[in-house]
């Protein structure tokens, strides 16, 4: 962890130096968002350096704390580093990229240029800079994934709690619906919904991916609730007259939080893949809005002449999914030591 922070400081400082002219440009532009982004870029190396200094002065987290455990888990730290860099890249996309994602530099002269110093990932068929598109695509791909997983996990937890707490016919009705939902292959399910509402905005996309992603979580939460419901501390809480809502909030939720968090981390990667798949099919995030999936689609027909268009966003997807899987694995072994 200590070394990672030092590395972060060095790398971000190097990037800030390399992109210094762009930082100045953004600072001068006068818009509040741009100024904030430029300042963030400048403060990142400082923050990482200060963090590294503090880490070397006092061995902060005591070795037995869960956080200390997590940070000493190699998989988790690598995953966290990947995810953090990707999020930083997405947030700082305007600072890091030299071109706006939609700008067609020179349709006649600059289309399908091979990677070079000016265009590290080359340019696409419409002479747009691929690096800029991948960086801006990260913003859309990652935010769609984060919002959808949030929706899916919330819904799944709620349904699971209701089913587990109520039991009886409501429980079996809900669980049969979950069975049915799990039986439809996810992508076919999404195809049906998207086919019926033919204009899909980013908001609808989040809604649709979230609404088809909660089945597994609800089953897991229900199982956890059922196993906890008969525990002595829950029975005791009931006996002293703790209300239903308080029982769920104060006694149940904190104890089922860790499997939910692990599911969320592992599910993130999956949702990134699904969004990329839909966008690749041309029915997710629509062009010209860049998303990793639709950049790969742009490069599909140019595989022989300009393979770099499809390669770069694909690597970005692999890194993202890998990062979230590692974080999920690490969390799992730190939070549920039984399953180690």
């Amino acid at each position: 962890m200590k070394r990672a922070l030092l590395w972060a400081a060095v790398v971000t400082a190097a990037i800030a130096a390399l992109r210094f002219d762009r930082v100045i440009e953004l600072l001068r532009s006068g818009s509040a968002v741009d100024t904030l982004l430029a300042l963030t870029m400048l403060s990142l190396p400082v923050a990482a350096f200060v963090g590294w200094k503090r880490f070397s002065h006092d061995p902060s987290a005591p070795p037995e704390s869960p956080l200390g455990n997590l940070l000493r888990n190699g998989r988790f730290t690598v995953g966290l580093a990947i995810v953090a860099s990707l999020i930083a890249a997405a947030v700082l996309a305007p600072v890091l990229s030299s071109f706006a994602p939609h700008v067609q530099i020179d349709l006649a002269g600059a289309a399908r240029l091979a990677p070079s110093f000016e265009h590290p990932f080359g340019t696409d068929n419409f002479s747009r800079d691929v690096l800029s598109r991948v960086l801006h695509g990260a913003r859309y791909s990652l935010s769609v994934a984060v919002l959808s997983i949030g929706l899916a996990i919330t819904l799944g937890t709620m349904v699971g709690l209701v089913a587990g707490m109520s039991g009886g016919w409501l429980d079996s009705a809900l669980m049969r619906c979950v069975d049915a939902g799990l039986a439809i292959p996810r992508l076919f399910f999404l195809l049906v919904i998207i086919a019926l509402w033919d204009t899909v905005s980013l908001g609808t996309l989040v809604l649709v991916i979230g609404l088809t992603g909660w089945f597994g979580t609800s089953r897991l939460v229900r199982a956890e609730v059922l196993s906890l419901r008969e525990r002595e501390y829950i029975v005791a809480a009931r006996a002293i007259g703790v209300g239903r809502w308080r029982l769920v909030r104060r006694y149940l939720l904190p104890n089922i939080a860790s499997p939910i968090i692990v599911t969320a981390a592992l599910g993130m990667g999956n949702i990134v893949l699904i969004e990329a798949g839909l966008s690749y099919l041309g029915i997710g995030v629509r062009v010209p809005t860049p998303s990793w999936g639709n950049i790969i689609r742009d490069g599909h027909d140019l595989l022989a002449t300009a393979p770099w268009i499809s390669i770069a966003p694909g690597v970005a997807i692999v890194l993202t999914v890998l990062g979230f899987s590692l974080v999920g694995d690490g969390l799992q072994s730190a939070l549920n030591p039984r399953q180690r």
Partner: protein
Amino acid sequence: MLASVARRTAQAAAIVFLVATITFVLLQLAPGDPFSPSAESTRVPPSVIEQHRRNFGLDQPIHTQYWRYLTNLVRGDFGYSFSLNRPAFDVIREAVPNTVILALAALVIDFSIGIAVGTIQGARPYSRVDDTLTVATLIMYSMPVFWLGLMLIMVFAGQLHWLPAGGTVSAGTYSALSVFGRVADRLSHLVLPALTLGLVSAAGTARYHRGAMLETITQDFIRTARAKGLEERVVLVRHALRHAILPAVTLFGLSLPVLLSGAVLVEAVFGWNGMGRVAVESILRRDYHVVTGAAILAALMVVVGNLIADALYQVADPRTRVESDS
């Protein structure tokens, strides 16, 4: 045994019924119906639209429509493809065999590679080989299936020219080939899509199987087998693998929906004429019934696959047989 089979079949039928109901609800929730006036069709007189609605029963109360929809499904009537002017079922039916072939080939690759890799890892846990394979499977697991397909096309079709880049058969020459040549031609078209779909799922299977092997290898009967002086290879294959492979049978049922979802993308990449491709193309033509029909059929495949997995599990593990009978 018979009673448990009957019970599971009833459960499966209930799931299929619910899937059909979900699609019906989705169809009803969608804005408008196939005859809603759109920008292009403002010149159609309202009386004609009304007539069309009446012809297709869209003016009936909702419960009548629901009942008709269900009875039609049972009779294999999935609705009508408005753009192709044919029953939706016929459109899908032509694509089903291709998807089944692709999925089966991918399953074979998935389980043979996945279990082989998992066994090698489980035999020497935490060794260098294990670590390397763990990283490799993790990366494979994180790969978007359609992107892997593109990369394989680039290498094996684009650079090396070993295999065709897409399609189910060679467009021009297929009809001129002999029977043997036709089979070879179909197989050569199958290799890349099946490999793409199979490799990604194999990564998951390997991860799962490694865990099962690790659990098995510490058990007493393995120590006994080693203590009585059996060769390590025999211990691994005859004793450990046999025990550890059981959970993989359940994995078969679980991996089916994932495999069919992946097939949609792989079919799109390789121009493989399967259900997924038909469904995606129907979306662009707003052919709802083909899309919903394909989804219901895909769900049916998953449910039947799970029934088969259950039956296999009972064959493989006698303990579950006794339990479910009592």
